[in-house]
């Protein structure tokens, strides 16, 4: 789980070539799957690309999926830098969304407030709820010695049970069967991208893409600044690289584990801004729909760097959108093909990260200096 650049590889190999090889492996593997099903992989790739990028609608949906993936990818990456593997993005996004949703429901109950006034409050609510849901496993690891991976997995299940209970018994809109809350007040709805661009005189198709996309990019810049250009970020990376050294340098690794997890969960919690305040406009079950898990693949592929994460979030967003178009065109290929690709990416970019490295290192290592006469 080494975060970021390779130790012995040239920068461009580590940042561009290695991810490219990983993508190639993932595409090859999924091509074999499509071939095994008895379909044409190249035709499938064609549908996938045109579905994701061939129309304004496709691009809109791709960016909309990428928005949530940027948040969850950043969440996983931030924890990586502190040496932590946060598998709980799914649960943190879920509970963060609860915070956003509750906030919106309360603001709706008082008659609604303009969205730009509500947004800072809902962001805070999502971050606090998601952050708290991650800080508890962090605290348990730091102060009670339980393993963060197991605890965050358990917290995913607990989050899902908690949300099911709240939606079915407490937050459901009275007099309906499906477990969904009342709709938020329209004043709280975030502006859609087609409305904003329409205001500027640019006509685009109507898609779920909304203002949150810009927020996600802002979050990337913020994480970049925080991790690489502040004292806190330096301490965070030191804890991730060598806990003992960090301790010796006066950083408390325990405190840092809790804070890093809280920050990670806060980022995951912002998925709710995109999905609930941006698109659904009500609280409902499973709105996060696997985005938290996909964040793992996004972070691994993006080498835990904000720029890489934006690119890999775009890639996975395109896969989500293109994949559903593909399954619409070719009935035998179901949209879960994206999940296979995601798994292969995690395998090659994550678990097998050491497989290609030695070969590439041999290939690109500067030639050993000829033995200059030492004597």
């Amino acid at each position, binding site marked *: 789980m080494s975060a970021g650049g390779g130790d012995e590889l040239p920068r461009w190999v580590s940042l561009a070539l290695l991810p490219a090889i990983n993508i190639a492996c993932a595409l090859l593997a999924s091509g074999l799957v499509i071939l095994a099903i008895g379909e044409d992989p190249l035709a499938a790739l064609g549908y996938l690309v045109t579905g994701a990028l061939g129309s304004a609608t496709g691009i809109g949906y791709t960016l909309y999926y990428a928005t949530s993936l940027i948040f969850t990818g950043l969440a996983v990456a931030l924890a990586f830098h502190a040496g932590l593997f946060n598998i709980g993005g799914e649960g943190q996004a879920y509970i963060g969304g609860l915070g956003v949703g509750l906030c919106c429901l309360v603001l709706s109950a008082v008659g609604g407030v303009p969205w730009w006034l509500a947004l800072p409050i809902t962001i805070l609510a999502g971050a606090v709820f998601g952050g708290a849901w991650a800080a508890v496993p962090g605290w348990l690891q730091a102060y009670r010695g339980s393993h963060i991976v*197991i605890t965050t997995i358990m917290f995913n299940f607990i989050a899902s049970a908690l949300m099911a209970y709240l939606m079915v018994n407490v937050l459901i809109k009275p007099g309906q069967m499906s477990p969904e809350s009342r709709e938020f007040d329209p004043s709280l709805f975030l502006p859609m991208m087609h409305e904003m661009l329409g205001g500027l005189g640019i006509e685009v198709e109507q898609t779920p893409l909304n203002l949150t996309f810009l927020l996600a990019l802002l979050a990337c810049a913020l994480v970049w600044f925080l991790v690489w250009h502040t004292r806190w970020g330096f301490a965070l990376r030191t804890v991730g690289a060598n806990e003992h050294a960090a301790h010796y340098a006066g950083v408390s690794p325990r405190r840092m584990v809790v804070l890093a997890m809280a920050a990670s969960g806060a980022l995951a919690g912002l998925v709710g801004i995109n999905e609930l305040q941006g698109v659904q406009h009500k609280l409902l079950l499973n709105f996060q729909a696997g985005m938290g898990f996909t964040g793992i693949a996004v972070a691994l592929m993006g080498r835990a760097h904000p720029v890489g994460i934006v690119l890999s979030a775009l890639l996975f967003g395109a896969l989500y959108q293109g994949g559903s178009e593909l399954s619409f065109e070719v009935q035998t290929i179901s949209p879960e093909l994206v999940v296979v690709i995601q798994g292969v990416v995690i395998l090659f970019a994550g678990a097998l990260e050491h497989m290609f490295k030695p070969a590439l290192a041999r290939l690109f290592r500067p030639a050993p200096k000829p033995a200059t006469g030492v004597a």
Partner: protein
Amino acid sequence: MDEALLLLLSTLDSTVRLAAPLVLAALAGFFSERAGVVDIGLEGKMLAGAFAAAAAATATGSPWVGLLAAIGTSLALALVHGFACITHRGNQVVSGVAINTIALGLTAVIANAWFQMGGRTPALDGPQRFGEITLPLAGALSGIPLIGPIYAELISGHNLLVYAAFAAVPLAAWVAYGTRFGLRLRAVGENPAAVDTAGIGVESLRYKAVLIAGLLCGIAGAYLATAQGAGFQENMTAGKGFLALAALILGKWKPWPTLAACLLFAFADALQARLQGVEVPGIGQVPVQLIEALPYVLTVLLLAGFVGRAIPPKASGMPYVKDR
């Protein structure tokens, strides 16, 4: 009285059925983790096994071919895990997540392509499944009070794989604590360097452990699709692999306590099915979600040392580097 006894017996009966896959998967985790290889991928191996069993049983009409297919598929995934974690010293958790993800996607894609039933396989019936076995004398003894019904309802009348699951517990305990292989296996999870110094291959031992885990997960998957259920559904394991992992932790990485934890979780599950919408005197309606979340909450509390303490094998999760 009689009715209460029957209700209790039928709850215990479903407890046994629900516990079987958990026991198999938890024992899989037991072998892998005691050898120092963390296995988050129990879920994925079970799921892939379930699909392979259902598909093979549909094609050939034999649950035995299904079982073999399940074991083969699960072993293949176990080999991937071994290749990534043992040979390439990759991160074991990440590898497990990859296996779960690949299994989830691949089973759905292939099921949809082969059977075109929205990610299901055709329903299996009769000889395509592992049927229930009535043990000898179950009918004759059922007249005897208490013992008769217990024997007839609870012990007799399960399918073969249930008996296999429960027989696997003493077998696993014997292998791990009574054989030379077991001693080495446990040693390699605690102190691989010592095992290496003794001239025993760490890698080959860990591969064996990972393959045993694959075998057991395959049987668990076949159980879900061709014994307990009648065919494959998308994501039909629905977290059972993680529940088994929780049982393993609750059982402190020991076979018999792990069995007890599996039975506890299965009992909670059986009870929850019965308590749905029922008013419990003095308490009112118990929220199903609370019972669902209970195993996970318990595991968190235990790992944190609030209820007892579970300490994992010392070298688990760490790849062994020989040349240090």
